[in-house]
């Protein structure tokens, strides 16, 4: 094991997959000459050259459509869209083509495509550059949508995504690239599945379900709760579609209480979808209404003071947990 950043773990995964499979290539805006907007692809152009590391014009729709075409043509593209915000310009190709072709054409075409893109707020980038749009894509049948939160997961999941025969939307977070974590030594091959969540902290009093950057906020909240005698189980969803519902239900059977913590908006989103599923599959095990911590229902404001209020934080998670864990339970 070594400790490396999320960014480096990602780059290793891309590099190892490129070495493993000639068909794998990467394309995107400013990934070569600029070294990648978040420096994920740094050095890859120098190592693999122009054929396999392609800078594209600033044109999300055509590069996404072309990546789909390349996948149809037998390649394994990893497309970097600069952020999820700009994927909206490509959303027609993603939703109307990538997600539908396998089904619509009777199971014939396969689109083994990975689209990497960071989302998220918290860096004062304003309303058009701070969105979490995994919910929008997770709504669509025909796509896999994953949101790894740790260096270990991001490396293992990117490898799985490249090998997956389906289109995978691989959603990173702008504030995760510098976080560090344990990753097996280089050369030690491992993958992480695209349909399994993980218990990142075992506990007995309450289940807190989260994903992406909010995992780290939630782990801190769990520490705070522990000091007050509340033993929280933290589940990192890792994948938004498909959802590892068994993992959630098993946890609810044990704790009987649920908080869902996400950065995105409240209405019709991932959190509400999860709550509905838990009510559907585990209603009888719940001892309290599910609590939901989420971003404010507004376009993200720029001003630091307002942005702080708009982003869900540790205290909100602690408060939500305490609201449904009776005092008698804590300390047992």
């Amino acid at each position: 094991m070594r400790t490396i950043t999320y960014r480096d773990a990602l780059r290793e995964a891309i590099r190892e997959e490129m070495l493993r499979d000639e068909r794998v290539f990467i394309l995107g805006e400013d990934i070569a000459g600029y070294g990648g907007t978040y420096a994920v692809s740094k050095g890859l152009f120098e190592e693999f050259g122009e054929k396999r590391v392609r800078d594209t014009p600033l044109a999300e729709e055509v590069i996404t459509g072309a990546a789909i075409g390349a996948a149809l043509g037998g390649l394994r593209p990893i497309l970097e869209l600069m952020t999820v915000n700009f994927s909206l310009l490509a959303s027609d190709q993603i939703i109307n083509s990538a997600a539908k072709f396998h089904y619509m054409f009777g199971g014939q075409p396969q689109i083994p495509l990975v689209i990497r893109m960071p989302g998220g707020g918290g860096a004062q980038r304003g309303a058009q550059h701070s969105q979490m749009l995994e919910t929008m894509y997770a709504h669509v049948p025909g796509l896999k949508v994953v949101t790894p939160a740790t260096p270990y997961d991001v490396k293992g999941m990117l490898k799985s995504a490249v090998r997956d025969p389906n289109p995978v939307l691989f959603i990173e977070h702008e504030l995760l690239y510098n976080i560090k974590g344990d990753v097996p030594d280089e050369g030690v091959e491992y993958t992480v599945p695209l349909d399994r969540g993980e218990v990142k902290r075992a506990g007995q009093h309450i289940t807190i379900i989260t994903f992406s950057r909010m995992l780290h906020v939630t782990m801190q909240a769990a520490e705070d709760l522990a000091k007050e005698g509340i033993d929280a189980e933290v589940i990192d969803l890792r994948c938004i579609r498909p959802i590892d519902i068994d993992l959630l239900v098993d946890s609810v059977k044990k704790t009987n209480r649920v908080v869902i913590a996400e950065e995105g908006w409240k209405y019709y989103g991932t959190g509400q979808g999860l709550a509905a599923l838990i009510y559907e599959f585990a209603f009888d095990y719940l001892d309290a209404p599910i609590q939901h911590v989420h971003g404010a229902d507004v376009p993200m404001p720029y001003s630091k003071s307002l942005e702080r209020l708009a982003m869900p934080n540790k205290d909100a998670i602690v408060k939500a947990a305490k609201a449904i864990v009776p005092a008698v339970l804590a300390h047992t």
Partner: protein
Amino acid sequence: MAISNATLAGLTRTQLLEMHYMMSLLRRFEEKSAEEYTRGKIGGFMHLYIGQEAVGVGSITNLLPEDRVLSSYREHGHAILKGMEPRVVMAELFGKSTGCSKGKGGSMHMWSNELGVYGGNGIVAAQLPMAAGLAFAAQYQGLNNVTMCFFGDGAVDEGAFHESLNLASLWKLPVVYMCENNQYSMGMAVAKAWAVDSLMPRAAAYNMPGEQVDGMDVIAVYEAALRAVERARNGEGPTLLEIKTYRFRGHSMTDPAYYRTREEEHEWRNTRDPIGIFEKRLQEQGIATQAEFDQNDARATQVAEDAADFAENSPDPAPAELFTGVMVDNSTALSFRRERE
């Protein structure tokens, strides 16, 4: 030196000196913004206009108060030129309640209904279709105003550019499309992104007049923009101008610009500075003196300082502002207010 009453491009000495002042102001304002960013007073993404001043000044000088300007995220200068007070722009950069967008927008999102500043768009090329629509609204209402839309060379790569030009030409809309070709979109050199080396074939493809203009020469920009604005105002339809310029700084505050050489940057800064070029010309033609330039520059520096003081001393938005103004009637996702207690 004797001051003649010579003119340039039909502009009076007073107008020319005002243009010089505006160029100096944009330069000093952006330098001040950079300083405040480094001090941590400004956050997020910030893109400076330094090097491109002649484009905004030369073109917006032609506009009337009722005309409209749309731009990208590199828009501090366009907003100021369209009449926005520098202190209001700076307050927006600081995220203060006195900013033009009440601190909710930030560097990329300047707006003013009264002044006809229609953003400040963070999505590359998003302003081009809207400019066509604004121009259509004017045409529809029989108004005589002109819409001027600024965008970068990178925006040309987006489908929205092509779709907008086609529509504008088809409907003969009173819009001027101003491509500020500063030779890079982030790290992508134009030559690596465009299959053609000029916008002129694109103008031709959409059946509208196009002109390539030296964007370091404020007078050349002024004259080309004047022709385009007059065409639009006379109901003759849109024009595409490709203004060749250069941004002296990185793409945004965090860009070390490894994709180009320091020599290239020095070359532009030292020999192609639009302010220096304009000063030389005004002096050579005996229109203005160094002392007048210095005076303009001192005033510009003072205004930029004042803007920063104003921003610094302005209040943050009130916490309640977080939830106001999402909808025009302040309605919420739920039909009752319980949510926001």
